[in-house]
C-alpha cells in the first residue's frame, strides 16, 4: 500500500478540541465512535455486575440472597442490557464508526449528521430504559407472550426502549452501507477492502433488514398490553408461537449482527501479528455475506420444542446445519494464516487466538442444538446458556477486547501496560472457562435455565460456575483499570506500532481531524505481508 507523507506541521488530532458540546454536537465519526464505546462499555460493566449478582445467588440451591422475583428481574435486565444495549450496537457502532472511514480512505461516513442523530436516538433509548428500571420487567430478554402480555411488571417501557434503539441500529447500518459503496478511496476496490469492512457490510445488511421486524413485533406487544390487541393472545384468537416466530426472525440474524463484526476484527488482528497475508480472503469475505443470508432462514431452530410442525422443524434443522459451514470455513482460514508466520503473542493476538479457541467450542456445541433429537433434550437447559455465552463472550466479547487492545494506540494515541494486559487476558480466559464449561454438563444433566432455585444435585457444578465468575470479573476489572490508566499515564503511541499495512495505521495516532491530509490512492490490498516468490512478483 502506498505510503503517505503527512505534513506534521498542520497535524491536529481529532481529540484536541475540548468541551462538552464539542462531543455532544460532534459529527466526527471517530468521536461518535468514542461516544458509543463509552456507552456500550458502561452497559457491559453494569450488565456484567448484574451477572455476578445472579451467580452469587446461584452459589447455593435455595433462594437466600435475593427473592425468586428479584432473580427473574436480574436475568431479564442482564439479558436485555447485554443484548440490546451492549452487544448489538457493540463493535458495529463503536469500532465500525471509528474504522470504516479510516480503512476505506474516506474523510468521514456518508451522512455525518445522521450518524450523530443515530447516537442521540441510542441515548434516548437508554434514557427510556433507565425509566424502565423503576418497575423492572421480569419476562426474560425474549419477552415471550403470553407471560409478557400478562405480567404485573412494566414491559412497555423496556420494549419501547428497545424499539427506539432499533432506529439507531437501522440508521447506523444504512449509513455504513452507503459509506462503503460511495466513499471508498480511489483504487480501494471491493476485493482490496479490509475484511473488517466486509464484516461491517454484512452486519449492516442484517441491521437494515432484521431490525424493523423486531420493531413491529415489540410494537405489537406494546399494543397487546395497552390497546388489548390480541395477535399473541390465545384467548382472543391469537397465537403465542407467532410472537416467537417474529421475535426470532430478528433475533437470530441479530446473533450474527453481534458476531460478524468480531469475526472481522479477528481477520484484521491475525495477519498483522503473524506477518502473513490472510489465508482465503475471498472465502472469508463471502462467507460473511453467506452467513448473513442464511441467518434469515434459521430462526425457528429456537423453537423445536415450541409446538411447530415436524416439517418446519426438519427444514429449519437442515438450514441450521448449513449456517455452520461458512463459520467453519472462517476458523480453518484463520488457523491456516498462522502457518509459517512470524507470530507475536501481543495481548490483542491473545484475544484473537482465545476467540478461535472459544468460538470453536461455541460453534461445535451449536451442532448439538441443530440436531433435532439432541436439541429436544438440551433445549432451555444450561447447555443453551453455556453455548450462547461461548459464542457471545468467547466470540464477540473476545473480539471486542481484542479490538480494544489492537486499535487502542491508534484511537487514543497512548499505550497501555502490555504485561498487565496479558495477565488480565489470562484471568478472563481461565475465569470464562471455569464459569461456563461446567454449564454444558449441567445442561446435559437436565438443569433448566432461568431457575432462581435448583435441586441440590446440581450444587457442585453450579458453585464451580460461580467461583469462575469471580475470576472472570477480576480479569475484566484489571483489564478496565489497565486501559483507563493508559489513557492518563500511558506512553505516547507511535503511528504504526505493529507494522500494519492497513490504511488507518498510515496516519498519525490519534488520527487527524480530517483523517487524511490527502485522499490516498490505493494500489494493493492491506494484507500484503511476507515475501512474494519471484514468479508471483
Amino acid at each position, binding site marked *: 500500500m502506498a505510503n503517505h507523507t503527512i505534513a506534521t506541521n498542520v497535524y491536529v488530532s481529532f481529540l484536541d478540541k475540548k468541551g462538552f458540546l464539542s462531543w455532544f454536537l460532534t459529527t466526527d465519526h471517530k468521536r461518535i465512535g468514542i461516544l458509543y464505546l463509552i456507552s456500550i462499555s458502561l452497559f457491559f460493566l453494569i450488565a456484567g455486575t448484574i451477572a455476578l449478582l445472579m451467580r452469587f445467588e446461584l452459589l447455593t440451591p435455595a433462594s437466600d440472597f435475593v427473592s425468586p422475583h428479584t432473580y427473574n428481574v436480574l436475568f431479564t435486565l442482564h439479558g436485555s442490557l447485554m443484548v440490546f444495549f451492549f452487544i448489538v450496537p457493540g463493535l458495529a457502532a463503536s469500532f465500525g464508526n471509528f474504522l470504516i472511514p479510516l480503512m476505506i480512505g474516506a474523510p468521514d461516513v456518508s451522512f455525518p449528521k445522521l450518524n450523530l442523530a443515530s447516537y442521540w436516538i441510542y441515548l434516548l433509548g437508554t434514557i427510556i430504559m433507565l425509566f424502565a428500571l423503576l418497575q423492572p420487567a421480569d419476562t426474560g430478554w425474549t419477552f415471550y407472550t403470553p407471560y409478557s402480555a400478562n405480567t404485573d411488571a412494566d414491559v412497555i417501557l423496556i420494549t419501547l426502549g428497545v424499539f427506539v434503539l432499533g432506529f439507531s441500529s437501522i440508521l447506523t447500518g444504512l449509513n455504513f452501507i452507503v459509506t462503503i459503496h460511495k466513499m471508498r478511496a480511489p483504487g480501494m476496490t471491493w476485493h482490496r477492502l479490509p475484511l473488517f469492512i466486509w464484516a461491517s457490510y454484512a452486519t449492516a445488511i442484517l441491521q437494515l433488514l432484521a431490525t424493523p421486524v423486531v420493531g413491529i413485533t415489540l410494537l405489537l406487544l406494546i399494543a397487546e398490553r395497552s390497546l388489548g390487541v390480541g395477535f399473541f393472545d390465545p384467548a382472543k384468537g391469537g397465537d403465542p408461537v407467532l410472537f416467537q416466530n417474529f421475535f426470532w426472525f430478528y433475533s437470530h440474524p441479530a446473533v450474527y449482527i453481534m458476531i460478524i463484526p468480531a469475526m472481522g476484527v479477528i481477520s484484521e488482528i491475525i495477519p498483522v501479528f503473524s506477518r502473513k497475508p490472510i489465508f482465503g480472503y*475471498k472465502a472469508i469475505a463471502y462467507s460473511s455475506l453467506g452467513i448473513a443470508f442464511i441467518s434469515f432462514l434459521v430462526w425457528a431452530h429456537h423453537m423445536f420444542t415450541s409446538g411447530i410442525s415436524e416439517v418446519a422443524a426438519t427444514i429449519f434443522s437442515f438450514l441450521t446445519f448449513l449456517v455452520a459451514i461458512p463459520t467453519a470455513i472462517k476458523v480453518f482460514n484463520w488457523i491456516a494464516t498462522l502457518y509459517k508466520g512470524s507470530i507475536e503473542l501481543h495481548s490483542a493476538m491473545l484475544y484473537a487466538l482465545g476467540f478461535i479457541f472459544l468460538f*470453536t467450542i461455541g460453534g461445535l456445541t451449536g451442532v448439538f442444538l441443530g440436531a433435532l433429537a439432541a436439541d429436544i433434550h438440551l433445549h432451555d437447559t444450561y447447555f443453551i446458556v453455556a453455548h450462547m455465552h461461548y459464542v457471545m463472550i468467547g466470540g464477540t466479547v473476545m473480539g471486542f477486547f481484542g479490538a480494544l487492545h489492537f486499535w487502542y494506540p491508534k484511537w487514543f494515541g497512548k499505550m497501555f501496560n502490555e504485561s498487565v494486559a496479558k495477565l488480565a487476558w489470562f484471568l478472563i480466559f481461565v475465569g470464562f472457562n471455569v464459569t461456563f464449561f461446567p454449564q454444558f454438563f449441567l445442561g446435559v*444433566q437436565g438443569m433448566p435455565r432461568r431457575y432462581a432455585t435448583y435441586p441440590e444435585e446440581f450444587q457442585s457444578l453450579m458453585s464451580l460456575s460461580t467461583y469462575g465468575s469471580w475470576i472472570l470479573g477480576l480479569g475484566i476489572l484489571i483489564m478496565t483499570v489497565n486501559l483507563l490508566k493508559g489513557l492518563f499515564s500511558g506512553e505516547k503511541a507511535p503511528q504504526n506500532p505493529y507494522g500494519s499495512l492497513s490504511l488507518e495505521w498510515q496516519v498519525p495516532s490519534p488520527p487527524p481531524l480530517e483523517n487524511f491530509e490527502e485522499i490516498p490512492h490505493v494500489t494493493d490490498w492491506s494484507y500484503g505481508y511476507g515475501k512474494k*516468490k519471484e514468479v508471483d512478483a
Partner: protein
Amino acid sequence: MTWIPEAASNLAGKVDGVLLVITLISIFFFVLISALLIYFAVKYRRRREDEETPYITGSEPLEILWTVIPSILLILLFVYGFVVYKEMRTPPKDSVDITVTGKQWLWTFDYYNGKKTLNELYVRQNIPVRMIMRADDVLHSFFIPAFRVKQDLLPGRYTQLWFTPTKIGTYDIFCAEYCGTGHSAMLGKVVVLSPEAYDIWEKGIGVDDGAAVASLPPAELGEKIYKEKGCNACHSIDGSIVIGPSFKGLYGRTGVLEDGSSYTADENYIMRSILEPQEEMVQGFQPVMPSFKGILSEDDITAVIAYMKTLK
C-alpha cells in the same frame, strides 16, 4: 456424579446415541483445531524482528477440502438427528393417554382411568404413554431429563409427547420454559411403577398412603404433602412471601379480606381456602391459587393444618 441422567425410557438410549456421535465428532474437531492453534503459535513464534514469512494467500484444494468434509459430516448428523426425532414425535397406536395441564406453578395429571394427581405422574413400566398437554395461563415446558423428552405447553392448543418408561424408579419433572416467579419451583416427579404396584395404585390405594405413610404423625404427613403437592412453590415456611402467604405463623392469624370483612385462619377457613381459594381472598394477594378439590382428601388437609400449627 454421572455425565448424564440414567436412561429410563425407550427414547433415552437413542437420544444418547445422537449426543455421543456429535460429542465424538466435536472432540475430534476441537482437538484438531486447538492442537494446530497451539502448535503454530509455539512453532512460528517471532524470534527476530526481521523474520521473513512466505506470501501465501490461499489454497483452493485445501479450501474445497475443509468445505466439503464438514458439509458431508453435518448432513449426516442432520439425518441422524432427524431420524431419532421422527421416532420421538410418533407415538405408537397402543399408547395410553394422560392429560397434563400446566398452570403457574403446578402440574395436573388426568389419567385415562379417571384418576387425577398433582405434580406426581404415575406410569406403568414398559407401557407407552402419550402425554396430551395444555397450559392454563402462560407457556410451560414439560421436561423429564431421565426420559430425554421435552415439549412446550401452550394455552389454547394441545401439544403432545410420548415415551415408554423402562426403569422402575422416581425421576424429576422440570418446567423448562420460563413462566414467572415460581418457575424454578414448578417441579414434579414421575413415578415408574412395576405392573403390580401400578395395579395397586390404580385401585385407589395411594402408593404413598401405604402402611408406612398412613402411620406417619399428621404433622409429618402434612410436611410431606406440603413438599410433594406443590404448596412450596408459592408458600414459604420461613415467613417470606413468595406468591401466597407464608405458612409460618399462618394458623390462627386474623386479618382483613378483599371485601373488607375480617377473617381468622382457623381450621375451617384454611380448609375453605384450599378447596375454594378464590372465595375469600386476603388483601394484597392475587387470586392465582388452583383448587385442590379432589386432589387432597380431608385427611390430607387435616395433616397440612397440623403441619401449619408446627410453624410458629
